[in-house]
């Protein structure tokens, strides 16, 4: 019986693995899109629940690190190119016989205004010179590292702060990042957003199957694999001695310190790992959506992640991940407006009202979330029966 959560977990993984292959609805692409976004939020919610629920560090800046990951890869892919010939007008370096070209930052433009230097060069060359983009994977790795590095720095700064101050500081950090991205239009193109190459630029050939650029299957499995990898890392963390220390930190930081746990170090490590996860999710999502804008850091997005984690169960990152997928699907389903008795109910807004009410109800009456208790319960049933069986066996042995 104690295995139920494990079996259920494996079944769920199998379900999500098989789903794209067996589902054949006419709205296939749309359903896939909802699920991919669901996985994206699941990574954010589970890593946030590790940070907030396990380690007790209430960060409201999780989306900022996601944004750093996304903008990390976006800027890299936007500004760096490899060409066969020097452009003569860009900043460029020799690169194994080719040229590494760094485009100049011109901000938002229009076909009637001056184009960037590489575009000018390409217009001059025609089709004679080959130009390559940077590999997407390298961008994603750089984005993740950038997010993790930022997480490390912020982690070092906030480790002294507790509860309310930490929440406010991270919120402030998030706002500053958003303001910088919106204001440095020359570099980031501001609200217009940066366009990114797709995850698999020339499509993908796997097992003899050809997937085009707009096919949903490759990004689906990519995002799902990333989610599983993050959950695996989180599970490993929580099971190890490290996880124990982290929990001890949350319960009583002073006592943990007294017992010889290097509280500072663990706090910073947790912060860095979870923010790197957020950054990785952001980078992959950015290549999937192919555009990044500062609105990703809109406070509503952070609210969604927090609400998803809380409704799933903030102290259990698996529950938080499931909560995120579940709520993402619900939010999409609830978009459909309907009318009762001639009154048109515009669900685009009302669904968020329901969402808020649900968040408050869960907080008030089901503090561990809706999914975490279920998982715990199954785990517990087993434990209880096992204990009873053991006791019985002992009694029998005694008698």
């Amino acid at each position: 019986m104690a295995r139920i959560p494990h079996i259920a977990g494996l079944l769920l993984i199998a379900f999500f693995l098989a789903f794209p292959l067996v589902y054949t609805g006419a709205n296939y692409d749309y359903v896939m899109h909802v699920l991919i976004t669901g996985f994206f939020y699941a990574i954010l919610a589970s890593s946030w629940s590790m940070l907030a629920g396990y380690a007790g560090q209430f960060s409201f800046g999780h989306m900022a690190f996601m944004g750093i990951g996304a903008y990390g890869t976006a800027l890299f892919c936007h500004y760096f190119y490899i060409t066969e010939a020097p452009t003569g007008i860009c900043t460029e370096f020799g690169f194994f016989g080719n040229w590494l070209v760094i485009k100049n930052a011109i901000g938002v433009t229009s076909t009637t205004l001056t184009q960037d230097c590489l575009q000018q060069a390409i217009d001059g060359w025609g089709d004679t010179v080959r130009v390559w983009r940077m590999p997407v994977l390298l961008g994603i790795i750089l984005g993740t590292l950038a997010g993790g590095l930022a997480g490390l720095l912020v982690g070092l700064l906030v480790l002294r702060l507790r509860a309310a101050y930490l929440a406010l500081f991270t919120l402030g950090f998030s706002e500053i990042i958003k303001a910088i991205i919106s204001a440095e239009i020359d570099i980031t193109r501001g609200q217009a957003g940066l366009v990114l190459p797709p995850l698999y630029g020339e499509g993908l050939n796997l097992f003899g199957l050809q997937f085009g650029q707009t096919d949903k299957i490759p990004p689906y499995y990519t995002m799902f694999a990333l989610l599983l990898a993050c959950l695996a890392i989180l599970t490993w963390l929580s099971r190890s001695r490290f996880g124990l220390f982290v929990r001890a930190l949350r319960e009583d930081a002073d006592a943990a310190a007294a017992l010889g746990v290097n509280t500072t170090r663990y706090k910073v490590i947790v912060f860095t790992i979870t923010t790197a996860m957020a950054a990785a999710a952001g980078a992959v999502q950015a290549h999937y959506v192919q555009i990044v804008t500062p609105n990703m850091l809109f406070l509503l997005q952070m609210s969604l992640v927090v609400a998803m984690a809380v409704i799933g169960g903030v102290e259990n990152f698996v529950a938080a991940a499931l909560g995120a997928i579940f709520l993402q699907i619900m939010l999409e389903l609830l978009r459909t407006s309907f009318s009762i008795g001639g009154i048109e109910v515009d669900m685009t807004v009302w669904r968020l009202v329901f969402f808020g009410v649900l968040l408050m109800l869960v907080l008030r009456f089901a503090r561990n979330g809706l999914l975490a208790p279920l998982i715990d319960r199954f785990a517990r049933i087993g434990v209880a029966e096992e204990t009873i069986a053991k006791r019985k066996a002992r009694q029998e042995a005694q008698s």
Partner: protein
Amino acid sequence: MKTSTLRRHLMLSAAAFALGAGAANAQDCPIKIGGLAPLSAPGTVVGGEAMRDAMMIAEADINAAGGVLGCDIEVVIADTEGLPERAIAVMERLITQDGVVAVGGGYHSSVGVASKDVADARGIPVVFAETWNDTITGDKQKHIFRIAPLSSWTSNVNWQFALTLPGIEKVVILTENTDYGIPASQETAKGLESGGVASTIFSVDIGTQDYAGIVERIKAEDPDMIITLVTGEAAFNFTQQAADAGIGPMDLPFQTGQDALESGTYWTNVPDGQYAFVQRIGVPESQFTEKGRAFAAVYKEKTGKSDVESYAMEAYDSIAVLAQAINEAGTTDGSSIVTALENISHEGTLGRIYFDYGLKRDPSEDGKGDEWWHQWPDPAITIIQFQEEGQASSEAAIVYPEAYKTAEPIWVNQ
């Protein structure tokens, strides 16, 4: 030219052939057409709601006239929230979930730029109604059309009008930091410079509420004219706060944001907004086509507004032109609709809608830029002025250009 007419003939006959084929393959009724509009923040909801209402009227009108290919049409409104990433998801949903055969509407430029690729990749024709950024048609995609004016072109009207102000030396441009505002402000500044007029650009986040600091800075620049390239309530806030500080529309020539066309909301939010100039797309109400007048009457009745905003008319026409194209194509197949659109001549509320350039003829053949691809060349752009307090925008005086002028501009502070 000869080849072009020949090709046109071929296409017409192809369309006629398709008509027969379409009648043979019974359509799934109703035929669905998507309608993009920003209906929640951070999008400009005022504009989005107007467009939604107009597109619903278009649906009713077309169905009342017998529908399309023997079916009723259904306009599926989708909320873009003014966000590019949302726009992609919404376009995807419209196409794969709702099964639309074409898409109209569209307000924010960033939404148009982001979502056009999805539609084009899936072979679904789009007629954008109010997205100005030149890139949208400049990318020369097969399925992308636009009846909104080009940003570069509306900017031209802005600076050319500004240059008619006697003794003008310095202009301050307040722009939103989006892909509507930034290119438009640069194009306007460039144009002003060509006329020997200096300009300073201030850019703001659309969420800004308090403009006191910026207003003081603008005041210190001592401009002869202020041009506002900001949408939504941000323009209202700025205009009223400028008026409070003594550099409002009643103190110097002041062009306010486009959303002032919804004059009821404008006067609520900018009580001191008399003499403001506003850019308006489309001819004045007195010169409306018959269809335009009919639409205006229905629209005013339905919404209770005192006038019709140009983006509402564009939204209406984007649906109507698509309906006619589907009818002429005789099928809901994307390529056939594109062919029909390229050859269309549609009597819309804004005037006769047609597309000069596209697959049939590249803009470069006439020495025009790529942005003229699938672009309706005729939207009349005028500058109006609220010469009386509380005036409806459709009754306001048209002061520029000469062709549409109904009154001389009142230059305050001269």
